[in-house]
């Protein structure tokens, strides 16, 4: 029963969505299914939050390796949840001056806004920016012209790296019009819109066929791996 009901729900919803895509009369059914999905997606945040609490509390309780990080995660989660839910630091709006909670939770100057602007944003930007340093170090140590494939990759990387800068277009100034295709930016455009496009289109079509066959297996109940392990 534990497995049969979810399979029936998944199959029924899936087929309704397929049918609603092809038969305009049943479009409304598809909309209803998607509306339920959106409600479930919002509830999934609550489930996700409680799961995060459970996993991290377990880790701290067992004093597992890295339990300190779990404690930091929990504190960050609970503080953010508290200041967001209770709108800490939010000022009443002009429209509703007597209702303290009438303003949005992320109002400028509120505690949640402060957390987002001065903690979350700089931390995320830092993580992203560090890539430049690690890519430089990795390129120096690992990007070697060891075989013909690596040489082709190196040549492409060189052209695209140059083509994505001011220098790429600067070459046109020195080239006669009939040889402008030799400039880095022209070659970059060619690589992206011919070689890359052909490869990506083939991969995309392959993925789409794979997704279609996997989806059919899920809808027909042949593939039940998404339900996890366990008996009926």
């Amino acid at each position, binding site marked *: 029963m534990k497995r049969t009901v979810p399979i029936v729900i998944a199959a029924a919803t899936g087929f309704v969505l397929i049918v609603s895509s092809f038969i305009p009369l049943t479009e409304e059914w*598809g909309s209803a299914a998607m509306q339920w*999905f959106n409600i479930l997606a919002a509830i999934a945040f609550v489930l996700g939050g409680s799961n995060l609490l459970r996993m991290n509390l377990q880790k701290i309780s067992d004093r597992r390796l890295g339990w300190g990080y779990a404690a930091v995660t929990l504190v960050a989660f609970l503080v953010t949840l508290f200041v967001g839910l209770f709108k800490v630091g939010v000022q009443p709006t002009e429209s509703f001056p007597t209702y303290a909670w009438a303003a949005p939770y992320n109002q400028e100057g509120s505690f949640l806004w402060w957390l987002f602007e001065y903690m979350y944003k700089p931390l995320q930007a830092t993580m992203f920016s560090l890539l430049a340093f690690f890519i430089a170090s990795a390129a*120096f140590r690992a990007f*070697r012209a060891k075989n013909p494939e690596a040489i082709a990759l190196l040549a492409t990387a060189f052209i695209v790296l140059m083509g994505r800068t001011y220098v790429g277009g600067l070459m046109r100034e020195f080239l006669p019009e009939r040889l402008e295709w030799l400039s880095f930016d022209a070659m970059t455009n060619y690589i992206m819109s011919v070689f890359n*496009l052909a490869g990506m289109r083939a991969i995309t079509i392959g993925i789409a066929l794979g997704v279609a066959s996997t989806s059919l297996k899920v809808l027909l109940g042949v593939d039940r791996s998404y339900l996890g392990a366990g008996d009926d």
Partner: protein
Amino acid sequence: MYEFFKTLDRRWIFLLMLIAVGLPILRGWQFPERPSPMVQSVFDAIESLPEGSQVWMAYDYDPGSQGELHPMALAFTRHCALKKLKMYYMTLWPQGPPMIQKNVDVLRNEFPDLQYGVDYVNLGYRPGYEGPIKLAVTDLRKTIAADVDGKSLNDLPMTKGLKNIQNVDLIINVSAGYPGTKEWVLYAATPYNISSVAGCTGVQAPYLYPYVPQQLNGLLGAIKGAAEYEFLLLEAYPQLRENPEAQEALRRMGPQLLAHLVLIALIVIGNVIYFVGRRRGDV
């Protein structure tokens, strides 16, 4: 020299990269751009819209990709505001609302003539990945009943008569991943024949090229695409030259140029060491 580079501490590489990125920022170096045909087609798609056209601004990114995507998002906003288009902002990313708010702030500060609810509206975040897209194209109110401040769509002049987004003139999507451009193309632009343009991170661009030009009119790839777009915008609307914030992507091309040159130099040096080492029997 060979020994020096062979045993080069990676902290020297980090320092070199720091200088390459920091110097152009501190000196304010800017370079002219040469717009590619792809960027030109994005610009033309917006420029060709008549005044009052409806544009759905789907901004699906977060602070992690803000450095790469925010300048193009603001450039789209400024372009639409200058063209007096009706802008509907929405995000499918939980961290997206503050990104949209920055765009709304630009409209409030730089275009005080535009009115909220009449010329632009902020519909905020909706959970459910591609789910809200499917509902927005069939029955908008099933996924969005109110704007970001809780005001009913029936009370806003822009949204009062809007049943779904099938009749919008253009979808502009700025995306850092899933859900993003691919989902807007698959579930809105293609099945309902809505014109669409997009801006994405450098990593995503190769995956989205197959959708151009049939399903996407054009695509801005990363900060380079944004810089070319800003260049076109400055050419068409010279009044923006007085606004340094409207040249943010152009400013960021300086660090990109030097960083790419350093990267190429490091790859070349690394390979020279490799071949010398191989000849000496060290590898």
